[in-house]
């Protein structure tokens, strides 16, 4: 599924102050079956953008359309994508299997069937035997897998991810990144992945959409032509290093601008 962002702006009105323009006329076509990374400094509107893509936030101007490239037909906005949240948003009172099966439960699927599918999905993300555990009894990495399983079980064509690995320690992060690469390889969904880690964006993405500091616009789109399937070894290659330099310079001035604006 292709995601077309057409002239989307988002303006927040603030009581007693000037309105804040989070996004300013963003235009982009996220290609179907590709892994697109949104990269930019804090406050540049990347999270807002993917929430708008996911139908969870309304744009102030502009539209989102989801198009099947095979036949040109549109698909509904909210139902075509699924979100994996920065804070994971696992339901703390539900155990692992009931968290994963939540989307199926609200769709009316029977208990036996949804639990069976959930178990399968948990095996896919490498989390076996923790069905009855509560989220608080799991480590950070394990919770990530639960959140991923809960999203993937919905089998929606578009996967939206908002800095999902930001809170993880370095080793777990690597493991999860490789896990995600493997899953992407197997499912070839359209993925929109928000991050502010340059190396992560290069490792995972087919393209990097670099955004400016607020008000958020697309500064540049950098294609990443590294071959798939990928693994973490890529990080040490000269191609990786060159891309890193290029993206770094592009983003540096935006980061500085964001910092001065926040200090002001």
């Amino acid at each position, binding site marked *: 599924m292709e995601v077309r962002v057409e002239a989307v702006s988002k303006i927040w009105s603030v009581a007693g102050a000037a309105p804040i323009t989070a996004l300013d006329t963003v235009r982009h076509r996220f290609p179907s079956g590709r892994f697109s990374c949104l990269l930019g400094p804090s406050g540049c509107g990347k999270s807002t953008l993917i929430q708008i893509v*996911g139908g*969870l936030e309304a744009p102030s101007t502009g539209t989102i359309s989801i198009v099947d490239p095979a036949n040109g037909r549109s698909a509904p906005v*909210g*139902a075509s994508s*699924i*979100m994996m*949240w920065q*804070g994971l*948003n696992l*339901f*703390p*009172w*539900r155990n692992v299997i009931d968290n994963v099966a*939540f*989307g199926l*439960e*609200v*769709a009316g699927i029977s208990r036996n069937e949804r639990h069976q599918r959930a178990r399968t999905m948990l095996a896919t993300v490498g989390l076996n035997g923790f069905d009855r555990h*509560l989220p*608080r*009894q*799991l*480590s*950070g990495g394990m919770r990530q897998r639960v959140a991923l399983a*809960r999203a993937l079980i*919905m089998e929606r064509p578009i996967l939206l991810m908002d800095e999902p690995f930001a809170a993880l320690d370095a080793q777990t992060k690597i493991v999860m990144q490789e896990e995600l690469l493997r899953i992407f390889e197997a499912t070839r969904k359209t993925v929109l992945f928000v991050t502010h880690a340059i190396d992560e964006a290069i490792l995972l993405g087919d393209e990097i959409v670099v955004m400016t500091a607020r008000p958020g616009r697309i500064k540049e789109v950098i294609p990443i032509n590294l071959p798939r399937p990928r693994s973490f070894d890529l990080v040490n290659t000269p191609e990786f290093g060159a891309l890193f330099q290029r993206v770094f310079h592009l983003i540096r001035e935006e980061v500085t601008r964001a910092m001065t604006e926040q200090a002001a």
Partner: protein
Amino acid sequence: MTRRRIAGLTLPALSIVGFIALWQLVVELRGIPPIYLPAPSAIAEALSQMALDGTLWINLAVTVLRIFAGFSVAAVCGVALGLLMGRSHIVAQIADPWLAALYPLPKISLIPLMIIWLGTGETYNIAMSAISAFFPIVLSTYAGVQQVDQGLVLAARDLGASARQIQTKVILPAAIPHIFNGLHLGMGVTIILVVAAEMIGGSDQRGMGYLLINAGQVMDTDKVFASLVVMAVIGAVIMKLQRFIDRRAAPWAVNAGASRE
């Protein structure tokens, strides 16, 4: 019972037994007249007398039934209104001034008015306790709903939950810890008000409050103390039972904080 639990009960049990023994000794050795302080032995005798002739069981049963009836009414109405207030801003705005104004009123002061409206039968008694328990329950429920992590609501929406499903599958469970707190406060208040209502308007002549006031009227201090002991024990049992039910109904809520990482 595990060994640890037995050990954990020993110290409290010892302190109670020790206190009673000390009390008995002081009363006997100092020759304190019973009108100042009855001896535990006299209280125990009054208690066994009440148990043997049946007055204890009948009145206790009546009071306990009233407690559960009043509490149930308050719990159902309080939680329902609290959830509704959380869901509808309009309802919240309408209800808010009334709750703020009526909550601080000591409900005991309403008793004469309630007697005028409702007489002194079961309706009055249950109404008194339900009204008192209603306020902490509704306010805690509303607070619980308001503090629900909106991220969870968004996640549920994203996963396809309808508004009603969000209410029952996200908001309600997320608010449970606060709701339980409110239910605890409500239960404590219920017990107090049931007994108070029995004491003040007890024309139907049953209940622990009735026993208390009657014994008090004729200065039967042994019976007064015995009734108080019974109420204290019952109160403790009910609160412990409530904790137990909490743990069964919502195990994640009772021990929040036992997380790894």
